[in-house]
């Protein structure tokens, strides 16, 4: 199940950051992707919310450090 989330995130990350070399892995974080600054983060989360039909709080967004945390958060929200 989380495989599907990772695949979807790979697609989203590539579109948001215009970079076809990105692969979503648990350790992937902003420091490894050009243009993934705080503004890029807002764009990313808007796309994720649209794609997965979930909403994040300001605190959650600030607390997510890497794609692994992100996937866990999405899974929790989808389980509700």
């Amino acid at each position, binding site marked *: 199940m989380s495989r599907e989330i990772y695949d979807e995130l790979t697609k989203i990350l590539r579109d948001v950051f*215009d970079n076809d070399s990105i692969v979503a892995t648990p350790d992937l974080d902003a420091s490894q992707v050009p243009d993934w600054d705080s503004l890029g983060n807002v764009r990313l989360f808007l796309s994720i919310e649209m794609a997965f039909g979930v909403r994040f709080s*300001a605190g959650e967004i600030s607390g997510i450090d890497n794609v692994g945390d992100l996937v866990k958060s999405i899974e929790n929200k989808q389980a509700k």
Partner: protein
Amino acid sequence: MAAPDMSLNILDMQWLPDVGSKFRENLRTLGEGREFSYAKAHSLATSRLDLSQLHTFARVLSRQTDPGGDGSLSLSILSNATADLIASSVIATAPRHRLWINAHVAPFGTFATEALDAFSETNTRRDDFVLLALDYKGFNLTSCPGDLTQANSIVASCVSQVQKFVAAIREASGATVIVQTLPLAATSEFGSLDAQLPGTLRWLIQRFNVELCEAISSGVLVLDVAGLAQMVGLSEWHDPVQWNLGKFSFSQRVVPLYAEWLCRLIAASKGKSKKCLVLDLDNTLWGGVIGDDGLHGVVLGQGSALGEAYLSVQEMALMLRKRGILLAVCSKNEDVIARMMFREHPEMCLREEHIAVFQANWQDKASNLVAIAEALNIGVDALVFMDDNPAERHQVRLALPQVAVPELPDNPDYFASILLSAGYFEAIQFTNDDRQRADHYKQNAARRAVLGDSTNLGEYLESLEMEAYVSTFDAVGRSRIAQLINKTNQFNLTTRRYSESAIEKFESDASIIDLQIRLRDRYGDNGMICVVICKECNAALVIDTWLMSCRVLNRRVEELVLNLLVGIARQRNLQRVIGIYSPTEKNGIVSDLYCRLGFKFQSESSDGTHWSLELSSFSASSVPIKLTLSPDIELDESAGGIA
């Protein structure tokens, strides 16, 4: 995105076609091509793009240095909130409106000093436009429920604060300032009482918006963000998560639509709004096919839900016509059968007299659109084409990408709303000229019919009984002068664009010789049809700007203007008149004007060809136009030719 026929959410921007799955590939070909294609950029921008697509697009556009076309516009954004994502969306939305905008955001929190300090970075940049993107949190709008005196004082001081910013920017930078109305908050303090009770935040914001619009000077543009937020829905507009996270004034999901509204306003100020709505007939203005179903079989009007939907499309078209937008018909039908609906069906609210050009035949729609543009003397890029049939829309988009073709859902209940939401006819003013435009075209049709009857042009012109009123630039004519200067493309020798505040300065500048000309004839008042700006230089009168409305071509107004300029030059003891022709894509009709008027070619340079007319060898021609001059125009009457 919601499926097009499920609901109408303005955020989905459904009038724009879907961008498809190859956006980033297409963007790459655009960016890597040897010669940047503005046409391709326009095409790519004329689709539904989300925030990230706009951001990526902006990156590609920012790498291009030569904007070509009408040149680039610079925009600075001053905001109390984080506006960086707005800047990139504006850059990428601009090509949709045939604009090129370099957008820049002042550092967070600096809006007040950037505006007020004459030597701030913003003011020294001397942008074309400065946007004051302030929301209610950027003002001292503290609620004081029940205290009317305090409430009025707060509103007045906030409006005055905006005026100070505006004045400071205009003075220091010369930019056109764009101010915003304030969206209401998504919550209320009491509930229904907020609207009534002075001093609530709702009351303060609503009063501020009214007073701002009343107090703002001409030449300042107003972006009605309050209206936009209402249309989007305040609970959709405000997002506490994004405010808390990064001080974003509104949900960044709305940024593509906000950027679209801003670009429309800027485009309108540059004369790029559309001028004519071309309507298909079957299943667009009524339900069914008139050729097959006949008068009694088509669905239109009262008594039927579907009929009401189509009637609302006609009512929308009539509303647009009332505000100066021309209507045309483009339909695959026998002409006589199509007109029958307009003449005989009792429920039609559009009638033949409302349609400026009626093209009903079996030729392809693109050719018909070209014919319509020619008949109206406007560019093909001034047309909007509304057709329920996706195949027809596709054909027109391919053949004529400059025509705006909105996507329409299957459901005709939404046709009128979608067309209006697309904002093709944005305007920054509404003049008497606009009000009368549709009738002018009717009068022109009457004039053309008379031309058919006259045996020669001379007789025809005499029969028109033309009268010209010439005066210098003044406050009364200012907004129409600005409109002509910024919108006229064909009869325009140098296509120099001046903002309304520059034009205001010309009024009192003694070194500028400026003329505005109005023309009446037997059939009606054409309004202001010609603008001329000249300067003196080295014993010559140099024509900086000479433009004319295409409505009055071939009336010998050109010769009248020449007689006037020679008269003015002689009065000032000058020796010659110098004209410049700067060629553009659209002004080919005046490429030989100076030659035809007897000027001699002098030289060619980067701004075009230079022509000279020695006054000593000029003799005026007699022109069949009665002339009235305002008293401040001084000219040597020996120039002759003045009736």
